[in-house]
Structure formats: C-alpha cells, structure tokens
C-alpha cells in the first residue's frame, strides 16, 4: 500500500471514530462536570439517584446468580449430551438478545400482568409483575440470559472429555467430577460470562422501562433514572452525571473482561 493511501485511510478511520466515539465521550464528561465536582457529587448522591443505584444492584444480585447457574447447567447439557431438542434449547437462549428489548418487555406484560394470560390468578395470590421490582427482575433476567452459556460452551468443547472420563474411571461421582474437574477448567470462562451478565444487567433499559412503570424511588433502576431525568424532570446535569456513573461501572466491567481475556490466553498456552 502506498504511503499516501495509508495516510488517507488512517485519517478517515480516525475522523470517523472521533465523530462517533471520541468527541461524544469527551463532551459528556465535560457536561457532567460543567458545574464543578460538588454539583456532580450532589446530583449522584441525591435520594432518587441512590435508590435507583440500589435497585439496580439488588436486581443484579438476584438475576446474575440465577443466570450463572442456568448458563453453566445448560452449557454442560449442550456440550456434553445429545438429546432431542438440543438445537431448540440453544436457540431459545439467544432469542431474548436477538430481538428488541421493548418486545421482551411487552411479552412479559402480556404473560404476567393484569392485561395478560396469568394476571388474574397471580393477582389473586398477591403477585403483581407490572409496575413492580419483580417485573424488573424478570425483564433483566431474560435479556441477560445467554452470556454465561455462550462464554462456556466453546471452552467445554475445546477441553474435551478426557479428564472427566479419567475422574469417572477413578470412581468420582457426578457432583465430584463437576466441582473438582469441570468447574476448575472452565472457571475463567464462567467469570467472563458473569462479567458480561453483570454489565448487561446493570445497563438494561428497554425491557425494564416497559415492565417497571417508571415510579421514581420505587421502580427506577439507574438507566431508567437517567432517562427520566432527561425526559420528565429536564434535569440535564442529573442525566449527564448519572450516565457518567453508569459508564464508569461498565468501564470496570470492560477492564475485568480484558484481564480475563489475557488470563485465558495464558491458560491456553499453558495447556498447549
């Protein structure tokens, strides 16, 4: 490639990424701190913001462990067994992230709310999914479903079953094999999937917005709070400050992912 071409292509890419990613990031940080650090701090420590953060963390604390257990279980089922409906099981996991999150929200409402299939019997038992934290847990769990599974399955295939066979021959039971052979081998992949799940859980917006009813202080997660600051309360500083906090949280997730990827590469080299 000629030097002039190389320079041209490089500039086009740099300008494109600058317009799309670089400048927006810079200006969001500037706007979050436009009234100084105290104002920013004041925004993110006000009661509604804190309760939104708390609800986000609580929902993650429920949805992430469940999806981790389900992901690990389903990954072993898919990578280690043959059974009728395996393809179907595999596809089911991708459906919630392949379609619009708004659709997932509407689907949950039409299944479990008063306007839906099981609304009446559930209401009879005092369970209300629409406009309640339970609905948020459902929506969040649905849209963060596949990440653990997708992180583990390739690793399980790559590992093969030799070690599990060996443990079996030596008389280990199923649970013993899982805890002392399979799980140690896939632990970094599990952690990778868990990090992705946490990131998605904390950031979920569309599905939660539809099922939550957006009641401030009660059913507002952090993303909903940010949206509400802009859309209803016209509190731009609140919007930018909240978004910066959420962005920083996902930066932590991104850093962990990068570390894990490095770790995993090293792991593969050690095995080879």
């Amino acid at each position: 490639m000629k030097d002039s071409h190389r320079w041209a292509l490089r500039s086009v890419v740099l300008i494109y990424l600058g317009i799309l990613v670089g400048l927006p990031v810079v200006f969001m940080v500037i706007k979050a701190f436009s009234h100084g650090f105290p104002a920013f701090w004041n925004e993110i420590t006000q009661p509604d913001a804190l309760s939104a953060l708390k609800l986000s963390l609580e929902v993650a604390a429920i949805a992430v462990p469940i999806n981790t257990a389900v992901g690990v279980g389903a990954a072993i089922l898919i990578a280690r067994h043959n059974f009728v409906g395996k393809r179907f099981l595999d596809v089911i996991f991708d459906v919630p992230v392949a379609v619009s999150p708004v659709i997932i929200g509407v689907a949950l409402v039409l299944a479990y709310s008063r306007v839906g299939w099981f609304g009446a019997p559930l209401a009879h038992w005092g369970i209300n999914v629409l406009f309640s934290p339970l609905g948020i847990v459902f929506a969040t769990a649905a849209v963060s479903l596949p990440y653990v599974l997708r992180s583990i399955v390739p690793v399980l295939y790559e590992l093969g079953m030799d070690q599990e066979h060996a443990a079996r021959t030596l008389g280990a039971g199923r649970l013993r094999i899982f805890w002392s052979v399979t799980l140690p081998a896939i632990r970094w992949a599990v952690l990778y999937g868990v990090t992705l799940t946490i990131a998605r859980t904390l950031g979920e917006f569309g599905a939660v917005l539809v099922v939550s009813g957006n009641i401030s202080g009660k059913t507002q997660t952090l993303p909903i709070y940010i949206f509400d600051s802009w859309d209803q309360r016209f509190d731009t500083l609140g919007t930018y400050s909240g978004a910066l906090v959420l962005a920083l949280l996902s930066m932590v997730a991104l850093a962990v992912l990068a570390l894990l990827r490095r770790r995993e590469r090293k792991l593969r080299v050690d095995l080879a």
Partner: protein
Amino acid sequence: MPTTTPLPPTSHESAPLSASLAPCRSSRFSPPLLAGGGSALLVGYLSLIVLIPIAALISHGLSISVATHGAGLAFWRWHVLIGLKTFWSAVTASGAKEAIVLSLWLSLSVAAINSIMGVAIAWVLVRDKFIGKGLIEASIDLPFALPTIVAGVLLLAIYGVDSPIHVDLFETWMGLMLALLFVTLPFSVRAVQPVLASLDLESEDAARTLGAGGVRTFFTVVFPSLWPAVLGGFGLAFARAIGEFGSISLIAGGVGRTTVASNYIYNLTQGFLWTNAAAVSTALLVLSLVVLITTNVLSSRYQKRTL
C-alpha cells in the same frame, strides 16, 4: 432428555482401552450436574422468562384466545381470520407503517455503512502501525460495554439541542443514524479483523508484482476471503439496529418522523394499547429472527464450502 444412569463399573473395565479414551459423544456417559431434576428446573425457568412470554405476545398479536375452547371448526376459521385482520390493521395503521419502514431503511443503511467502515477500521487495526492504536482498539469495544442509555446520553451531549459544536441533530434521522452506528460499531470490525489478520500477504504481493494496483488487489485478492465475515457483520448489525431502543430513545425526541419501530411499540404501551403493541412486536420479532437465521445459514453454508 439424556439418560443419567451411571455405567456399571464392570462394563467400563471390560471395555477396550481405546474405546474409553475416545471422546465420548454419546449420552451414556453423563457428566456432572443436571440429573432429571436439574433439566426440569432449566426447562421451567426458560418457559417462565422466555417461552411463555413470547407465546403470550404472539397470541395477543394475532388475537388468538383460548377462551373459545370447544367451538367448532367454522368458528375457528372465522376467529383466525378476525385475528389476522386485527394484526394487519395494527401493523399497517398510520404511524406503525411509517415506523417499520423507517426502522428498515435506517437499519439497512447503518449496516451498509458499518460494513464499509468496519473493513476500513479492521484494515487499519491489522495492517497499520502508529502511536495510539491501542486507543482505537479500546474505542471499538466501548459501544459493547456501554449501556444503551449511556450511548444515548453521549450523543445528546454533543449532537443535542444545546450542542457545543453547533451540530443539532435532535429529532432528525441523522441523529438516529449516528446512535445506530455507535451501537453497531463493533460488529463488522470484530467479524472482519481476525479474517484479515489470518490472510497471508504473499498473494497480495504476487498480485502487485503482476501489476495490479492497490484497489484492484483489494477487490480481486483480499475481498473474496473477507466477504463472508463482512456479510456476518452486516447481518448482526442489521438485526441489532432494527430492534435498538435505548440509544435512540433520547435523540429521537417525541415526533413522528423519528419514531422507529421499537419507539412506536413503547409509545403504544404508554397508551395501554396492548393488542396493537403485541401485533407490531410480533411483526418486528419475526423480522429480526428471519434476518438472524438468514445470516446464520448463509455464512455457515459459505464456511462449509471453503473448509
């Protein structure tokens, strides 16, 4: 369901060594976890959060009710016909049609731009060397990690009403397009990058020695190996763009000309028009799944041919 009964030890001992060492793909050997109870829990959980809601959505979308259980065939035929009519009128209602059309053409153009820029960015990442390349590498992953609402706020901060650089894209299709380009940025790059890195430079050098120019070399030597990856990235970006909501919900504002399908559905739910919301959702759901399956089939077929 897999059988989970353990092998009797005698059969294992009497089996030839080679057989027990071969990677076992049968369900006779069943590793850890997930006995019958576990599988039942898994199926129950998936039903609870995915299958039942999707079934409820489609049944509401097509206005199929099970309350008329036991009615005759003639009634059912009438019932389904009415259901389809309701579905069709909800999908073609004024506003709905425009939203779906807007989503379609925006997603197509975003996927196309994304594919072209994806190849360019991947090329720079693989073949070029300069200080600060790591920053570009990181900025590609950023849209993956950032929550969609943060993506929306990011764009608003610079291309919103009080734009610091005086580029106001609020409530314009350009604003929507930027948001969609932002969230789909990684798809093409990450699909093309590994393929580009795995190409050997010899054939390109050969083409150049034979007198082909840079552009000719790219299209006749490099592109034929790249296009399945480009196609895969296109499909992923299109599927993501057609369902995107969070990143565009802020910059779209509240006017009809920037209401995409997801936004339209959300507006219906705010007016408690659940049947219409279900119908448009069903249409969008089918559209997304068709795109995803088509891309999957196309790229896997191509891979099989090359292997």
